[in-house]
């Protein structure tokens, strides 16, 4: 029952550690550790920001093209600029409700470097003119909550938070708050509902874009934990150095949780755009190859909501635009590797079951559709599938996400890539996400579904005899 595997090698020019430099520092979570270790000096970036105008800080973040790390990949600086002008108060919400299956990075950032997140939140609050910051941490993460609470207490004591921070006229409060178990609350408008004390159901956008009408109908910027955690390094090292990592369109690094069938699963910080999936899976620094020397069957490049990729896509770079054009998404940096022993139908069912359980129930196509998708897949797995089930499954899916669904190319089968994102009949992307495993699995492994539907010998035998067909 070991500790999490992280990259313990030094930060270098080629593979810099922007956000993970204190992951293997024992006291990196304390104020002392934060100022004495890591790839930048703790709270020096805040001091630097306070010598600039708020507008100049926003411009800097915009120039750096700091892309949001929560899933959508929207530039943070541009998002900040959407705040309704001259409307006060404004709020910053740090989205720490990490729960997309396969995703494990925000929890590490919160547990191992909470001051980095706090400093990033302060910089964001300064830039947009926020009255208050809410750190919304997933309920099931008490260790992260403890680390953040302790760090907040230290930072208040040291005058980094509160009234007249570091002797300037910048004043802001940061409040720690918890969720209580609901995946959908990771969606920003649902998070705001939750923060107002309600059921976490998403709001319709427009009109409820948080930057215009967010928390208490005031301008609110909701940023992912990793996005905010990038700010201290960015302000310390500057735009040019930040942009020297990664590519023109996607500068900087990404934290990738590499899980599933690889020799060395772990949370690795990799440069965006210049690293390929092959390198991630095979290099000794990261994955160390497919587990047991087996063959790759498929992989999920960006969390449960992302359409699957296959061996044909391993040489693609970890670059949002490229992955999007090829029919999937980088999402939240969750790469799940599945080897040739994986049952595609079973993997598909498990992912769909997740969406069925987590549907909030607001939109009919998702509330009803995800449940039916799960039931149909379950009966196929149980040997009770009907020949019409695959068409039925795709029909239900089409009610949630009409038209061609994003898909990876399969030259041998004459399939061309359908680019991301999918269309949707729902308010938020949860329902449409349930379709990703279905279309991905059926496009490549239809024979596995048909095998389960047609083979009578797979009908489970119970002690009472053969179950009815």
């Amino acid at each position, binding site marked *: 029952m070991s500790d999490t595997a992280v990259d313990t090698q030094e930060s270098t020019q080629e593979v810099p550690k922007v956000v993970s430099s204190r992951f293997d520092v024992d006291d990196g979570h304390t104020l002392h550790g934060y100022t004495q270790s890591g790839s930048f000096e703790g709270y020096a970036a805040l001091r630097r920001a306070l010598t600039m105008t708020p507008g100049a800080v926003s411009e800097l973040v915009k120039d750096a093209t700091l892309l949001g790390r929560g899933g959508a990949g929207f530039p943070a600086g541009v998002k900040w600029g959407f705040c309704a002008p001259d409307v006060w108060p404004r709020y910053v919400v740090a989205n720490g409700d990490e729960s997309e299956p396969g995703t494990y990075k925000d929890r590490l950032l919160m547990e191992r470097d909470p001051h980095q997140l706090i400093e990033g939140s302060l910089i964001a609050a300064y830039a947009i003119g926020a009255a208050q910051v809410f750190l919304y941490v997933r309920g*099931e993460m008490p*260790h992260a909550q403890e680390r953040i609470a302790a760090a907040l207490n230290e930072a208040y004591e040291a005058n980094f938070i509160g009234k007249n921070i570091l002797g300037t006229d910048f004043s802001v*409060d940061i409040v720690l708050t918890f969720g*209580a178990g609901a995946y959908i609350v990771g969606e920003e408008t649902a998070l705001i509902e939750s923060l107002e004390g309600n*059921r976490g159901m998403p709001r319709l956008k427009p009109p409820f874009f948080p930057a215009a009408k967010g928390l208490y109908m005031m301008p609110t910027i909701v940023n992912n934990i990793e996005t905010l955690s990038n700010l201290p390094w960015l302000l310390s090292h500057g735009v040019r150095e930040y942009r020297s990592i990664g590519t023109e369109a996607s500068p900087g690094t990404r934290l990738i*949780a590499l*899980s599933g069938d690889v020799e060395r699963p772990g949370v690795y910080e990799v440069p965006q755009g210049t690293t390929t999936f092959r390198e991630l899976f095979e290099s000794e620094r990261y994955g160390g190859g497919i587990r047991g020397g087996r063959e790759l069957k498929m992989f999920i490049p960006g969390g449960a909501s992302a359409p699957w990729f296959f061996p044909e896509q391993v040489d693609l770079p970890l670059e949002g635009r490229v992955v999007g054009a090829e029919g999937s998404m980088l999402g939240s940096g969750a790469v799940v590797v599945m080897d040739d022993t994986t049952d595609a139908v079973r993997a598909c069912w*498990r992912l769909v079951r997740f969406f069925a359980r987590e549907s909030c129930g607001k939109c009919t196509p998702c509330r009803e559709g995800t449940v039916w998708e799960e039931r149909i897949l379950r009966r196929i797995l149980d040997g009770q599938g009907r020949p019409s089930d695959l068409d039925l499954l795709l029909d239900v899916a089409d009610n949630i996400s009409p038209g061609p669904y994003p898909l990876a190319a399969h030259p041998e089968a004459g399939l061309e890539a359908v680019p991301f994102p999918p269309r949707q009949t729902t308010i938020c992307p949860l329902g449409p996400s349930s379709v990703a495993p279905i279309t991905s699995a059926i496009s490549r492994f239809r024979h596995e579904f048909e095998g389960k539907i047609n083979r009578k010998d797979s009908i489970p035998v119970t002690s009472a005899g053969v179950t009815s067909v």
Partner: protein
Amino acid sequence: MARLTPDNLLLARKIIARFPEPRSATIMLCHLAQEQDGYLSPEAMEQVAELIGATSAEVLGTASFYEMFKMHPVGKYCVNVCTNISCQLLGGEELLEHAEEVMGIRSGSTTADGMFTLEDVECVAACTEAPAVQVNYRYFNRVSPDDFDELLEDLRSGELSRTIPSHGTLGNVRQDLHGDRVANITSPSQQVEPAWFPNGDSDEGPAK
């Protein structure tokens, strides 16, 4: 029981004061009540409602949306086995079956001695450490069936009672907001433009 103790009532009032609107404290107060009683009782929800100026039906409406809130007593330890994709690939489902067998209960139920509640849960963000188990939301990584048996033994013997608090208790460390350091937490309608934006968005003066 059920009503908050005087200490917890004091804490509840402090928590409410951290939010611009009292209702924003709903989830935190439900956690506090669950921490005290091990589950969320109707009386506790009534009191939360009084404290935040809502009806108890509204509090129930919110609380029932969130999986962590238990409306009935559960075991001293909630044992959550993750079976989502990354854990499934590395034996999460088999581990759940093993757990059901050795605990003698199905997922979703509680042992007769009130010690354990077993649950089959969604991704707990420990995907690289599969299969993952949480006990009262404290993590155990890469758990084999043998590790699991040992874990149950340690929980029964009280070996882990220091590291794993009883059900309902989350963080052992709380945020502590001192009145003299707090900048300005008031309702949105009482907030003015920030001092470091002297001329609003249009013409930002330099910070001091």
